[in-house]
């Protein structure tokens, strides 16, 4: 169960990443954020973001063009 949820539906690159960064910066380490996005590009982008920043991408799910990324803050 996520501690926080960010709904970035309808937003396009780079907004899902920027909003994810902002949301994570307000959270404590170990907390979990769910990011909801409708931007197909964010699949690779969130992965790259987590790679670079060290945050852990716990899971990615897709349901009818709606993506949910579960990220654990380092």
């Amino acid at each position, binding site marked *: 169960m996520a501690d926080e949820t960010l709904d970035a539906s309808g*937003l*396009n690159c*780079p*907004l899902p990443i920027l909003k*994810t*960064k902002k949301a994570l910066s307000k959270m404590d380490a170990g907390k979990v954020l769910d990011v909801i996005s409708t931007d197909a590009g964010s699949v690779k982008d969130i992965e790259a*973001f987590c790679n670079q*920043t060290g945050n852990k991408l716990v899971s990615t799910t897709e349901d009818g063009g709606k993506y949910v990324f579960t990220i654990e803050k380092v």
Partner: protein
Amino acid sequence: MSDDNKMTIIATKGTFDWAFPPFIIASTGVAMDKEVTIFFTFYGLNLLLKDTSKLKVSPIGNPSMPMKMPFGPKWLQKIDFGPKIPNVLWNIPGAESLVTWMMKKTMAKHGVAKLEELRSMCQEFDVKFIACEMTVELFGFDKEDFIDGVEFAGAAMYFDEASGGDHHLYM
């Protein structure tokens, strides 16, 4: 932060379309823990103006720009009018404003951030904005024309900012 995390962008273009890439790359860079500096010079200075409403996109001299309808039936939106419309028509007064308005519409429809939104996110994330002092004077700008938080300096400061970094882009 280590030096190899530094990134710089030289922003040289002042049209509405080209205003986006520097702010998109810079804001994403800082979101990914880079330390980013943008050096705005020549027409790129326009991107730092308080009033960005004068930024326009022109189809003249912009031959690869797709020109598609932001509304209407799907088949109509697929047509690229760019190559179909003679360049001479774009000299009609108001054409640039019309095209700019259409591009803004298309961007809003696709959930692309507004220019001011991207710019203020850059500032919120501590992207350093440097305006080239020489071109500020050359083009008769006043420092008050620009948003707060801009530093004014020359090419040497760009090199100081770029020093040690491994990621430098010219836009």
